[in-house]
């Protein structure tokens, strides 16, 4: 967290890019300078008294020059207020926070698996993996075609719960047969999505003996390790819990109990 800053950042744009899903772009050369894929920012949706008390965490979806991009679902007051931000307004951002995906591990193929808005960290990761000349296969699952987000991803395989586009079923059901039928060399899974999906994936990875890193969500107050509010149970000896905000949000599935 050496690059962590707290800044009022200028909003570049905020657009609805899929159903209730927004792409927020804001300027921060400090954050883009140090951010790594998988890290997140903690954003104040409104000034004191004009919105929720606490900041809201969002994965860094992509960096583009000085611009940081976030993808988010408008599900409550905080995200609703953020979705109304317009060019030229400012937002108070704390970041980059947390640990990044460990991209420099030993593998040939990066298997990205995302459920819904869990796709958020992967454009950034993809850009990094491309630089490292890794093969990338991306599996994204959505409720329906209206929610699909695929920009800045590579070799995309789509599943929808209602079958309105791509594979009819969930993303793990799409992913597993692919694993079986494809020669991937040494593979590593990078995943983000609902806990039930991450659980299924983690078991699959264990069965297939593939290294799997996931990005977790958790209810956070501070996002920086001050409050101890975001535990996730660890495997192994040592302390029982890790903190999602500081020790994560990226974890090897073998290190935590989902």
């Amino acid at each position, binding site marked *: *967290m*050496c690059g*962590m*800053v*707290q800044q009022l950042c200028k909003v570049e744009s905020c657009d609805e890019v899929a159903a209730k899903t927004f792409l927020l772009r804001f300027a921060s050369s400090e954050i883009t300078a140090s951010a790594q894929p998988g890290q997140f920012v903690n954003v*104040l949706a409104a000034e*004191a008294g004009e919105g*929720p*008390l*606490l*900041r809201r965490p969002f994965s860094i979806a992509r960096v583009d020059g000085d611009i940081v991009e976030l993808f988010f679902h408008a599900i409550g007051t905080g995200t609703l207020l953020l979705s109304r931000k317009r060019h030229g307004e400012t937002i*108070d951002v*704390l970041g980059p926070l947390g640990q990044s995906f460990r991209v420099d591990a030993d593998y040939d193929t990066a298997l990205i698996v995302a459920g819904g808005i869990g796709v958020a960290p992967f454009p950034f990761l993809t850009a990094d993996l491309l630089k490292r000349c890794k093969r990338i296969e991306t599996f994204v699952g959505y409720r329906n075609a209206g929610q699909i987000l695929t920009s800045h991803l590579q070799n995309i395989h789509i599943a929808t719960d209602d079958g309105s586009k791509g594979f009819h079923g969930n993303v793990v059901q799409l992913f597993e047969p692919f694993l079986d039928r494809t020669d991937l060399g040494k593979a590593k899974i990078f995943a983000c999505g609902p806990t039930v999906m991450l659980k299924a994936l983690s078991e699959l990875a264990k069965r297939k003996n593939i290294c799997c890193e996931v990005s977790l969500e*958790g*209810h*956070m*107050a*501070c*996002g*920086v*390790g*001050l*409050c*101890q*509010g*975001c*535990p*996730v*149970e660890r495997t192994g000896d040592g*302390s*029982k*819990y890790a903190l999602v905000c*500081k020790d994560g949000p990226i974890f090897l599935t073998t290190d935590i109990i989902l």
Partner: protein
Amino acid sequence: MTASIKNKIKTSFTLRGIEFKNRVFVASGTFGYGDEVRKLVDVSRLGGIFTKSLSWKPRAGNPPQRIVETASGMLNSIGLANIGVHTFIEQKLPYLRKLDTRIIPNIAASSLQEYCDVLELLEEQEGIAAYEINVSCPNVKEGGLNFGTDCSMTGKITASLRKLTNKTLIIKLTPNVTHISEFARTVEAEGADAVSVINTLIGMAIDIKTRKPKLSTVTGGLSGPAIKPVALAKVYEVAKSVKIPVFGVGGIASAEDAIEFLLAGATAVQIGTMNFVDPVISVKIADGLEIYAREHGILDMGTLVGALDADLKFSVLQSWL
């Protein structure tokens, strides 16, 4: 600019011979061990840091979910997750004692003996300005009843710790009692040098989809701006009933809020939940107090303490709610 203000306005105060450079502190459990945000926050601008509560052994804390946001506040059920006093001494204190601010370890325990053990171990260390005692802990011997809601136990803890140290002893009172001033008077009589008022209010939230409590422990502690009026009333009640200084804490979010607490009788304030919203808020509040003092020709911040102009002729009416 702040340097030139500093020269003119007395912001410091003294407690049992220890000088604190100003009246703004960060509250226990809301600033970690001071190192998490060291790059962001110039802690040398603060009166001091109250550490996360320390117990004898490390505590893993409660299972998730530990945090629930509420209207202008939050519930927490951290379960006093902490690294334990030994690790604190080895890993955190060496860094902390080099900081240009006062370090006040906060002690939590589940038995009288544990309070004493932790304090005795800390007594052997350098760089500790004072102790804050969190009595909002379950007394395991008494089936988990909270020490802090039992006036005689609170007094007993105070008396026992008083015997063990000559350093400043601050007892942190819980608001979840009928007459907090009784507790304040008791700990004053048992030798406490100051009290911190308040810890969190007991609260609860339910997830109507799962029909489960949102917190793994069913209830938790409510903090943040929502509780500021309650905290202020408790500080006022305590300050009126004891002579020892009061650290005011609860929902403080601005220099104006801090001034309310000083006027109500707090000698100094602690910033808790708002550190999560804005990690540098305590420094902003310290600056804000100095700006206020300058604008109002106040030469010593101490003149604000208890300077409330309250007309008490209606005080009986207060209980008509």
